């Protein structure tokens, strides 16, 4: 028994057993189930086992699918640009311009605390801001910028992307800040000593060294936006669609096989993107 436990493969698997069990039961099996059900048939109120390609044929035959996938990529791309820009700037300020560690930790915590609060509440809280009689409109009117309330502030692509940026920028801040804090400060001194300007140091030293953090942040933001359905439904007032909403609509209509087929395509797309991004970064080394 003692000798058996000395075997690192066996003791490793024993220690990883609870983790593997959870992942097997609640991740692998559900994925298998979704793939299986995506070939099943459905009536109006029930589903039955079969081996049909109808769900996929319908999915790929419908022009809605392509526009919805396009919309999903659009949200992901625009959100990525904004979260990266804001997240990098915030992390850069924290890592290189705040001088004491105490302040760095305090300000960093201020940025991360909203992550531990409810996303739904944070979405709801935009309503009094963006609504027809909201703060934004009344402020703009009192400044004389506009004469009557702007309608596109709430329940539009604008509010969807605003909410995404609001919810997910900290997924960029945290990994980028983490990578920046590990940059050897003498490299930056060296750049200055060699006559580099602040901007040159940023583009030639800091940005290349921050790439792993940027990649990890991008993985988070892209997957969260691509898999979302609730933000789009809530912030667009059900006027815009993404793939997640397509799935949740099918679920609401009890069309599980059709939902499963869409889910398989979505999962394949997301995993493909992640596989590409992972080629640029070794996550385990960067933590």
């Amino acid at each position, binding site marked *: 028994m003692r000798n058996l436990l000395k075997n*690192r493969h066996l003791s*490793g*698997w024993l*220690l*990883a057993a609870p*983790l593997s069990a*959870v*992942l097997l039961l*609640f*991740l692998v*099996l*559900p*994925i298998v*189930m979704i793939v299986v*059900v995506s070939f099943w048939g459905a009536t109006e109120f029930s589903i039955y086992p079969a081996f049909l390609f109808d769900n996929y044929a319908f999915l790929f035959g419908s022009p809605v699918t392509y526009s919805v996938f396009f919309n999903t990529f659009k949200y992901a791309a625009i959100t990525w640009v904004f979260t990266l820009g*804001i997240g990098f700037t*915030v992390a850069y*300020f924290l890592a290189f*311009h705040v001088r004491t560690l105490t302040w760095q930790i305090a*300000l960093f*915590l201020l*940025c991360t605390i*909203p992550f*531990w*609060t*409810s*996303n*739904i*509440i944070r979405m*709801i*809280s*935009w*309503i*009094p*801001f963006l*609504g027809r*009689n*909201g*703060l934004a409109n009344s402020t703009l009117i009192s400044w004389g910028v506009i004469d009557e309330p702007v309608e596109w502030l709430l329940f539009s692509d604008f509010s969807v992307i605003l909410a995404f940026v*609001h919810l997910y920028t900290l997924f960029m801040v945290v990994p980028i800040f983490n990578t920046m804090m590990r940059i050897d400060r003498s490299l*930056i001194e060296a750049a200055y000593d060699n006559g580099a300007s*602040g901007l040159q140091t940023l583009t030639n030293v800091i940005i290349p060294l921050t790439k792993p953090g940027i990649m990890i942040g991008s*993985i988070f933001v892209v997957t969260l936006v*691509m*898999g979302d*359905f*609730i933000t789009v439904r*809530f912030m667009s007032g059900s006027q815009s669609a993404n793939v*997640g909403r397509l*799935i949740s609509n099918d*679920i609401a209509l009890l069309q599980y096989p059709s939902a*499963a087929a869409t*889910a398989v395509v*979505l*999962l394949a797309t*997301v*995993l493909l993107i*992640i596989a590409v991004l992972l080629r640029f970064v070794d*996550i385990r080394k960067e*933590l």
Partner: protein
Amino acid sequence: MSGKRSRSFYLLAGFFALFLLFLYGPTMTIAILSFQGPDGGLTFPMRGVSTYWFADLFRQQAVGDIWGSFSRSLVLGLMVMVTTVVVSVMGGLAFRKRFAGSSVVFYLVITSLVIPSILVSLGVGLIFSQSGLNVHWSTSGYGSQLTWTLPFGLLIMFAVFNRFDPSYEEAARDQGASNWQTIRHVVLPIIAPSLIGVALFGFTLSYDEFARTLLTSGSYNTLPLEIYGMTTNVTTPVIFALGTLTTLFSFLVIAIFLLTVWLQARRRARQGSDAGKGML
């Protein structure tokens, strides 16, 4: 990089302040609006100031069961928290051994992190319904939430063990400590502050989780599901009052965790090493 602050410092500091306003502004707005008078609506202006809508939360509810869902979310959060800490520590220790097949488990963890939440909901819901089991927040909901909290717990454990100095363990083993004694008296005390972090992630991510619980919680809602239900049929500031209360609760939880970390660090700094004091 020393001496007088550069102009770019002030520009960046201004940007940072705006970012914080962007992060917290909306939450503060609904906190103010939740004190609307009884005739007030969902936007400004304030029609009087009152605690009417907070009191409304404690009256008999026309729709839903706020306090029942709150207690379910609380219990579920604690269940997920304890499981996340224990399973993440075991997983973290396992990955250090670089056992055969560990990279498969690692990629499963990454998949668990990046998979769209609604897929977990859909898949688990389908398995339960097709095998004739009833979905319930404490079974299917609990397992689905673990697929979201465990990756975070493990990523933290990876970060911790990447910085862990193995010579502490070697010293313990050289003194004759068994494997279990080394973990119990050397490894766990050293990583304890990070475990509080894992617990914080476990509890708060579960307490706020929506998509993975949507199809897996059964007929008894958790609090985020209850709040989401309210957004479609409640048009009074009572929803802001609820939002403010649950956000305050989250802040309280975060404060407790951070305070524990801080107290622990202070105690360590004061006591220094306990070498020579024995294990009792």
